[in-house]
């Protein structure tokens, strides 16, 4: 097929013009992308560029086609950023003290009375990308005769409790409680929270570097708040800990998150549990291993990135979750 041809100069002009027009038409989406970048020069630069872009786009009504299309497909609110940490009655507008008065770890755990089931348990799974595979494994274990009724897995890549501006799990958790009425909420958060920046803190305030006492205190407040939200609605919360990772960076950051999840679960022994995936998936010497033996067979547990689970790894985590559920319910 012979087509008329043109010059490279024209192609370059066309590329620049097309992307410039597209930037104006998509300015709101670009602004959201910029806002949700990790703190740093890249975010600052992106905000510097997108701020005037949105101004021009709105002035020329060029953001209207995108907005109208979003309304037509039922996604009108997609470009809005809601960074408020909604934690119901436990919501506070100020940052907590950097050190809790009484560390939760020192409390003696109570043992909840096991509830007898008269109908299958409704399970909802939510969290970052690490929630997906264990959620699917739980789904495979649910069904008739198992007293587990699976709701859904809501897994959103690169989200967490530190960045409600990226995806507001606090808002979503409120909706889940009121709309889905689960008996159990299985949550996997933290892998994408290990940054020096947290959204949803009062303007002009920061939480300090990742792992600092103030960071830990604020993160603990959020985890604790979510647990209380579910607990107030009579929902048991299962916090899935982060698995032992391959790589020194994550190996330093994951235990910090795990210690917070674990301490909050310990502080709410009747309403929450912590699933220790770190030790469920580590090797014989407590080190990272991609393989474990399952029924004598060497089985791949982890994806090549050294963080995410394979389906077999998800099965191991699901087994741990069901075992923990046995603390609260008399499962068959």
């Amino acid at each position: 097929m012979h087509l008329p041809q043109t010059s490279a100069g024209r192609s370059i002009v066309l590329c620049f013009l097309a992307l410039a027009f597209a930037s104006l038409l998509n300015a709101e989406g670009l602004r959201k992308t910029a806002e949700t970048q990790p703190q740093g020069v890249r975010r600052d630069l992106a905000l510097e560029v997108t701020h005037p872009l949105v101004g021009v786009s709105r002035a020329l009504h060029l953001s209207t086609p995108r907005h109208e299309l979003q309304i037509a497909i039922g996604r009108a609110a997609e470009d809005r950023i809601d960074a408020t940490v909604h934690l119901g009655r436990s919501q506070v507008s100020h940052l907590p003290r950097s050190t809790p008065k009484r560390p939760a770890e020192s409390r003696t755990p109570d043992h909840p009375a096991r509830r007898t089931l008269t109908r299958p348990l409704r399970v909802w799974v939510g969290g970052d990308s690490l929630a997906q595979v264990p959620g699917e494994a739980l789904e495979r274990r649910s069904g008739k005769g198992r007293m587990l009724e699976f709701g859904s897995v809501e897994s959103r890549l690169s989200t967490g409790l530190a960045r409600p501006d990226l995806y507001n799990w606090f808002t979503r958790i409120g909706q889940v409680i009121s709309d889905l009425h689960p008996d159990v909420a299985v949550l996997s958060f933290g892998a994408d929270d290990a940054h020096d920046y947290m959204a949803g803190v009062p303007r002009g305030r920061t939480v300090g570097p990742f792992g600092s006492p103030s960071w830990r205190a604020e993160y603990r407040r959020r985890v604790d708040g979510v647990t209380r939200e579910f607990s107030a609605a009579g929902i048991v919360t299962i916090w899935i800990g982060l698995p032992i990772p391959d790589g020194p960076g994550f190996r330093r950051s994951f235990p910090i998150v795990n210690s917070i999840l674990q301490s909050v679960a310990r502080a709410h022994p009747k309403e929450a549990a912590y699933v220790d995936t770190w030790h469920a998936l580590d090797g014989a010497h407590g080190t990272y291993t991609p393989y474990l033996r399952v029924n004598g067979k060497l089985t791949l547990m982890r994806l090549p990135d050294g963080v995410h689970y394979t389906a077999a790894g998800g099965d191991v985590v699901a087994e741990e979750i069901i075992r923990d559920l046995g603390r609260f319910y008399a499962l068959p």
Partner: protein
Amino acid sequence: MLFPTVTFAVFFLIVLPVSWALMPRQRVWRVWILIASYVFYAWWNWRFVFLLGASTLVTHALAVAIHRAREPRLRKTFLGLALTFDLGLLAYFKYAGFFVTSLDNALGRLGVENASWIVNVTLPVGISFYTFMAISYVVDTYRGQLVPSSLARFAVFQAFFPHLVAGPIVRASELLPQLERPRDSRRIDNGRAFALILSGLFLKVVIANQLASHIVDDVFAAPNRHSSLEVLVGIYGYAVQIFADFCGYTNIAIGIALLLGFRFPQNFASPYTAVSLQDFWRRWHMTLSRWLRDYLYIPLGGSRKGRLRTYLNVMLTMLLGGLWHGAAWTFVAWGGIHGTVLAVERLARDRRAARGLAAPADTALRRWVGRIVTFHIVCFGWIFFRADSFGRARDVIERLFTAWGTASPLVTSSVVLAIGVGIGGQYVRPEALGRVFGAFQRLPVGAQAACAAVALMVIDTLGPEGVAPFIYFRF
């Protein structure tokens, strides 16, 4: 660095004008494009840049040695060394874990005490693609079909960023001549380039991502939780998803190369319109099909060593083609399904020929029956390709027959529409597309930019939030 991201857009807006500005000074251009390609590759994991560099240096050195050697035995030795090196890299980085676990589990079944050693190797993105290009380079040199170029040209050939991580698998004889002299800056196929880039983005961002998140992932994760209709639509959905994902990527790659002045071979030609499996492989991942034909099937003897050997060669080629896609037995099974059906089709043709019967008349009914049967054989193969184990594949197949009449909330109008567009789009005639390209090409540059911008806005708005990685990146 993924194509449908702002990062890549910025990267390309820098690379494109500088590339054309430096084009007349070929040496400087080669340095520039090599730096750009290595930066593109390093975006995933900078350590693997050294692996790519080592592959280039060793492959080129051995190709030159093959070319210079006069002694046939010496040439063969150098070829063996090159193949051992390139396939060794692939075997180690892609298949070490697979081989170790398969061996360990086989020994375990025989009652031999398991003495496993754990292998934990990160798969470098694109290694299957650039290794195949390296192999074609040394084999073509050995066959006397190619004279090795300079190291710099070969480095650009192997690392050129549009094809680096997921193809198409470009041959040295196709790209190296284009690297010999500056590209003509007055002969750019703008219309085709933009149509390919925009259609690729649409296929990936709108069709593939929607199908993955709305039905396919759910169905293949827990087939027993879904109705037969959902499972059936999920399988059709995966057939369209993998086509949209991979064809989308290569369309963008070909379009980007065109804007830089280079022509890549076509990689897809409406594969779901194929009337037989042989026809399917002439339309699906065409650059891999011809690679397997020229560097595996023909060296194995092709169809020159009798009928039985021909069927065996077809089967071996497809089994290894399956393994190329992933280090798991499910991929081998996928290759086995294709190999079996290809061998059966060939057997039927051979028998007809042996009886002196003419080929059946090419009627519309026969074509449609062929298309429907072929599509369903391909879909059956995709079950094994997508499932993470044989157990899961069995669950999918069982569920296909055992849960009719139950609710199917995942079968929504948007899912059916995406599947319809993905398959129906393949029946659009190339001439019609050509008219669209031509009409775009004749527009003033401002109007062209406005059209492209509106298309980008629609694609971005319709696609789900975030960018899912391309399926073929893991191969």
